[in-house]
């Protein structure tokens, strides 16, 4: 069962990622990326991370990708023209990517002591608390300060996004009075 689910959603994930590269219209790429993120959420669920699966669907497949599709439609992005990329990308980039993938795969396949994942094999501590309980306990006791700093970061990001996007910059006739 686990193997079937893994093969199904890993295949979906890879198909979405490859489709992202092959599509020439940005909106198709964005929809493929949603497929990738949703299948990753299922993989998280199989790895015993229920909270992260929910957060992946809500934050990534929901919020971030809605933002992406919104911007694509707002800017009316058309098909990209295919060019062969820069010389640096062809001469250094692709060999480097292949080399990195080969090295990582070799290291992973040589690694000893990697276990296997079973269904319903979530993280539990000695007292039998579930994964979500353990995670929230650590998050709200030991890591409370980083958590709060993250909320400040999000606030600053919102302010920065508003400031960047609302600035009506170098439009010749769109300038009205005091900015």
């Amino acid at each position, binding site marked *: *069962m*686990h193997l079937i689910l893994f093969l199904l959603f890993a295949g979906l994930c890879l198909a979405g990622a490859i489709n*992202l*590269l092959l599509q020439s219209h940005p909106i198709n790429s964005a929809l493929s990326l949603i497929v990738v993120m949703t299948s990753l959420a299922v993989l998280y669920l199989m790895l015993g*991370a229920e909270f992260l699966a929910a957060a992946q669907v809500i934050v990534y497949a929901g919020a971030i990708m809605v933002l*992406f599709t919104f911007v694509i439609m707002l800017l009316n992005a058309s098909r*990209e023209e295919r060019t062969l990329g820069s010389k640096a990308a062809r001469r250094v*980039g692709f060999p480097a990517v292949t080399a990195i*993938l080969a090295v990582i795969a070799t290291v992973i396949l040589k690694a000893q002591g990697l276990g296997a994942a079973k269904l319903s094999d979530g993280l539990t501590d000695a007292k039998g608390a579930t994964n979500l309980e353990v995670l929230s306990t650590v998050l709200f006791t030991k890591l409370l300060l980083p958590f709060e700093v993250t909320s400040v970061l999000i606030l600053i990001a919102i302010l920065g996004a508003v400031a960047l996007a609302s600035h009506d910059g*170098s439009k010749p006739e769109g300038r009205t009075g005091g900015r």
Partner: protein
Amino acid sequence: MNLNFAQEVPLSWYLILSAILFSLGVVGFLIKRNLITVFMSIELMLNGVNLSFVTFAQQWHEVKGQIFVFFVMMVAAAEAAVGLAIIIAVFRARATLAVDRIDLMKL
């Protein structure tokens, strides 16, 4: 590896999947010519790394890996908001999204 394949999946498969996702993200970053699609490739790389974090959290039965993924998600949300605002600003200034034409800072 004499595993009962109907019941469980080796964690190395998850790690290989995450490495492939990361590499596809790098390839997309190199070959895509649209600013938004390049940005989406970066998100793909982030997701590949997140998968390996969750896999190692499962391997060592540690909750820290999952917390790291949580923070990566939050930072990615902030990054997406700011990045897309920058893309809108660039589009206003240059009226194009093709990375070949946004080359003001190129040597």
